[in-house]
């Protein structure tokens, strides 16, 4: 059932408030948007808001508590925690955006083809998707990343990107299956429009809203996956990342007496993922309230 009164739905289309207005009505989504804006600005202007280079150790202050010059102290090697915290946002955002871009592209193409053509092609694509989905994603990502000698950020993005497409493919396939029965598709076919043009020009624009919403939530979970990998010691060893900062702070001694080493990176991950999830929820409501039921 829709959450809104029926009268509102019956109004003419022109009177529907703009996309932005519908989004802005969702207070949590606006909060999420503000948080994300801050984190993106933080990633872009990292050198301007930090005093220390994240790759340079302060040899005069190792393992220091918060103090002037080091607002969140330093770790046991002398790296400035604030600086590492700020620069880590780059890795998280990059993995989130690029991994999701890769698998959304693959999933959309695979799901579009499977849904439109059906038959054997559909069967093969969906059985491959079922196979990949049978493996818990965290464990299969871990396994495949282990195959690489060098665990750079690109490898992590690539592995996540190539293993996470089945969910989008299923979503797109389901939508295409129902949309291809609509009359405008039959009409397009009747006037001689080619199959690929029907899929990409006529059908896909109707699936975009679903894809955007799903991709937004996907960014949140990709950021979490990257953080988890770094936490397990399987992230890019050269870059600062929130997960890695928590990995280095795992001892009970640090947990008990040095909150500045573990609380800030943990809160940053939570805030970043929460922000993206709120934006996703706002987009879902703004783009199509009916999606809520799925």
């Amino acid at each position, binding site marked *: 059932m829709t959450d809104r009164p029926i009268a509102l739905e019956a109004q003419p289309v022109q009177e529907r408030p703009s996309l932005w207005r519908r989004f802005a009505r969702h207070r949590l989504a606006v909060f999420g948007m503000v948080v994300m804006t801050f984190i993106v600005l933080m990633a872009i202007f990292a050198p301007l808001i930090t005093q220390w280079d994240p790759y340079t150790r302060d040899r005069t202050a190792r393992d220091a508590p918060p103090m002037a010059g080091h607002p969140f102290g330093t770790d046991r090697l002398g790296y400035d925690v604030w600086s590492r915290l700020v620069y880590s946002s780059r890795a998280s955002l990059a993995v989130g955006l690029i991994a999701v871009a890769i698998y959304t592209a693959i999933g959309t193409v695979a799901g579009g083809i499977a849904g439109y053509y059906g038959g054997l092609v559909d069967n093969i694509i969906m059985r491959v998707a079922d196979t990949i989905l049978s493996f*818990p994603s965290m464990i299969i990502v871990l*396994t495949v990343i*282990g195959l690489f000698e060098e665990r750079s950020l690109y490898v992590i993005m690539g592995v996540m990107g190539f293993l996470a497409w089945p969910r989008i493919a299923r979503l797109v396939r389901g939508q295409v299956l129902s949309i291809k029965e609509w009359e405008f598709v039959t009409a397009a076919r009747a006037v001689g429009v080619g199959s690929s043009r029907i899929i990409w020009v006529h059908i896909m624009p109707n699936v975009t809203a679903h894809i955007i919403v799903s991709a937004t939530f996907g960014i949140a979970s990709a950021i979490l996956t990257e953080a988890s990998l770094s936490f397990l010691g399987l992230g890019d060893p050269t870059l600062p990342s929130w997960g890695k900062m928590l990995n280095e702070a*795992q001892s*009970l001694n640090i947990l008990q007496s040095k909150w500045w080493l573990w609380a800030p990176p*943990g809160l940053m991950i939570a805030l970043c*993922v929460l922000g993206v999830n709120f934006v996703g929820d706002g987009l879902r409501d703004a783009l199509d309230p009916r999606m809520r039921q799925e």
Partner: protein
Amino acid sequence: MLRYFIRRLVTAIPVIVGITIFTFTLAQLAPGDPAAAYVDMESFSEEALNAARERLGLNDPLPVQYVRWLGLTLQGDLGRSLITRKPVGELITHRLWNTISLTAASLILSTLVGLAVGVISAVYQYSTMDYLFTIVSFAAVSVPGFFLALVFIYIFALRLNWLPTSGMFDLRLPADATTWERTWDSIKHYIMPVIALSAPSAAPLARYARSSMLEVLNQDYLQTARAKGARERRVIWRHAFPNALLPIITVVALRLPFLFGGSVIIEQIFQWQGLGSMSVKAVLDSDYPIIMAVNLIFAVLVLASNLLADMLYAVADPRVRYD
């Protein structure tokens, strides 16, 4: 119904084959030579390694190797660890139980909490409690499991000293401890890992339960029940809830891969002797026979639980007709 069951089983066959091919392919891509685990360390030589490869059939064409590997796997022979040289099956069996008990407890807890929260949110839609639950649900899926676990350890183990920081039992427990003492000790070690593992799964279940319940609450037959004089509590729990529960069966089964994935991290933090922590160590050691076995077991468990859920759903909801 029977025809549906058979058809559902038949569609699972290509997926099972896919799972084994995928696992086998990953093992082929893995660095390290599985034959090395069968060569005596003292008398290690190229010839000995080659002889082992020949004996194990590792020089045969890949399809031949795949079929042989499949046969051995079906008989329970999963190869040997490259590090400890022990049979993988032996290393895995006792850890498998630890992981299953951890994930099963988490599945039950997240289902109970998710259903309760979902039903309350739906019945009191748009109340303060509903909004509060919405925000808590978002937080539960957004806070990384390892951070939640660290916060738990900080609060309940280090500050309040109520629960043990990690492990599965207290090593200082006296040898003559009673069964009750042992059980209580074990429960205390389960509390934090189970809650930390359940939280991210309880939240989406609560959202599904809420929308499923809202859908049912709007149906006319509930008015009929009220008109007949049924009390509100009875209307909700006896008339609405069972119907709202049906679609949840599938959703609960779909949480399993997330719980297995989450167990990797939770087991690592709480030093739980399960498959998850074992696979992290195996990946870091490039001990591929172990990693492959763990992947295979998890994938088969996930597939089996999905099959079971689909069948349960078909049994529970006679309205669903499969042609």
